């Protein structure tokens, strides 16, 4: 235990007073959420109807067995969107460093896009986007 106390002492990275604003922000954030939730609970009118009490599941009616077969189109589009979204996000740091990276960087990014394209070709060839029978 002694060694642990000693360890705490040795790390001198900053004054603990520096963290006061962060603490205040955390308290404010938690307090705001709690206040709003309590306020809406107390102030809001309560009219309960069957439709309102139902779980919201992306507009799909939620009743019956969860293991029912379901159109996969929605999920495919969502997953593909995430993939290409991430790809685009990777372009931002590249765009910032476009000049300094030069041709080497350009080739690297081309390689990156090529990997995405192979995945995309795979998806198309497997018929994952063929929706009409």
């Amino acid at each position, binding site marked *: 235990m002694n*060694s*642990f106390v*000693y*360890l*705490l002492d*040795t*790390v*001198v990275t900053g004054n603990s007073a520096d963290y006061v604003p962060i603490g205040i922000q955390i308290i404010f954030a938690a307090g705001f959420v709690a206040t709003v939730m309590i306020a809406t609970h107390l102030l809001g009118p309560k009219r309960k109807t069957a439709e309102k009490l139902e779980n919201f599941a992306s507009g799909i009616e939620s009743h019956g067995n969860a293991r029912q077969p379901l159109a996969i189109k929605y999920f495919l589009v969502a997953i593909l969107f995430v993939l290409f979204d991430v790809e685009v996000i990777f372009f931002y740091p590249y765009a910032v460093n476009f000049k300094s990276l030069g041709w080497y960087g350009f080739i690297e990014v081309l390689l990156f896009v090529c990997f995405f394209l*192979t995945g995309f*070709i*795979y998806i198309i*060839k*497997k018929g994952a986007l063929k929706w009409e029978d």
Partner: protein
Amino acid sequence: MNAIIFSAGWGIIMMFCSFLVKNQSSYRHIAAVGLLVLLAANIFDTYGVDFFHIDSGKMLAYTRFGFVFNSIAIASTLIYVLLTGRDIERLGRYTAEFFTLVFFVLCGVCLLSAYNNLLMLFLGIEILTIPLYILTGSDKRNLKSNEAALKYFLMGSFSTGLMLMGIALMYGGTGTFLLESSRLQSNLYHGISFLEIVGLLFLLASMCFKVSAAPFHFWTPDVYDGAPSVVTSFMATIVKVAGFIAFLKLCTVRMSVTSTAIDWKLIFSIIIILTLLFGNITAIFQQSVKRMLAYSSISQAGFMLFALFSMNEYASKGLLMYSVAYCLATIGLFAVLVKMKDVTFEGYNGLAKTQPVLAATNAIFLFSLAGIPLTAGFLAKYYMLASIIKTGTYTWVVVAGVLFAAISVYYYFRVIQAMYFKNGEPQMESFGRSFKLGLVVLAAIIIIVGAFPQALFNWLYF
């Protein structure tokens, strides 16, 4: 670098084969050729012939030990594909994708044996486990397989979160992601940071989860039991041993320099005893051989943890030996288990009468797992115990290890008892002459390595 790029590249080739090659049965041949190419590329790597000169910026550090381990992992996968290729085909319509994921897992294995940066450790673990989540659920119509995949995914992603948190804390404590102690060069550093210790404890927990060491082992039986047997065979062997190789590197570099601040040996001895206790005692009560093998993989993980406890030369040699002995024996056992229609102990009754070759090779694999002399498993256990005796402390861990090894003989020999001393008509899938030949070769390798361990260790030096 060869092995990393070839494994990822051949994975993509397999992916494209799924729609370019129509013949289902040719996928496993393509995969076998790919593994041979990969093995050759890795051997070129070992002797300094690098086809791709890529500057990884100290993120990867290649060692002979890592290369030898890569070769073992790739060769084991080759044996696995050759023995169980037909059974993989029976799993469903996505055989080529199955092999794709196997190649991606191997890419993660190659990263884990060479990482020198905590981010690379994270990347390697992720590349290793994400394909496994899919493989676990690859038997889509089977509810148990679905359950196993979901359990594995939820708990695995949670432990990955712990690992990231640990890495972040270690970065906070030391100011670097590099594994090698750059603190020696850094003037800013004045001692061992509290944050680094906490981070290492987080990493310890998540790595223990990945290698299924107690008290983080609860996912193992359900996942190994629910996953299709061919997947369990891969998961319990190559993937688990790769986790240990990564863990060993983490221990020898980061944990050994912080040993003045926290008693890692005490922590590891507790983990070892708990793992051996849970694995062995629960394995005794199992009725299904598949589930017994899942618990046995926990208890074998307990023995592999000995290497992390002692962290000396004996330990790394022993872990290499253990990976050969454990991987080959378990792959062989699962290859037979996949062919059985009934995977309880009763299902093995009278196997020696109907299939003498299968029963004999199975017995050799079980001898190796139990650590009977003249098999590779005996030397592996010997090196593990010797490594702790070398450290000169905690001899009671050795005593406990020997006791638990004796207990493990009971449930391994129950299978042999069922095969040789009970009467019955085991129901089996059909298999060819080449399957029997493969099993005999596998058993021969185990005995050769057990009799001449230098055949393995020479790879480390020459």
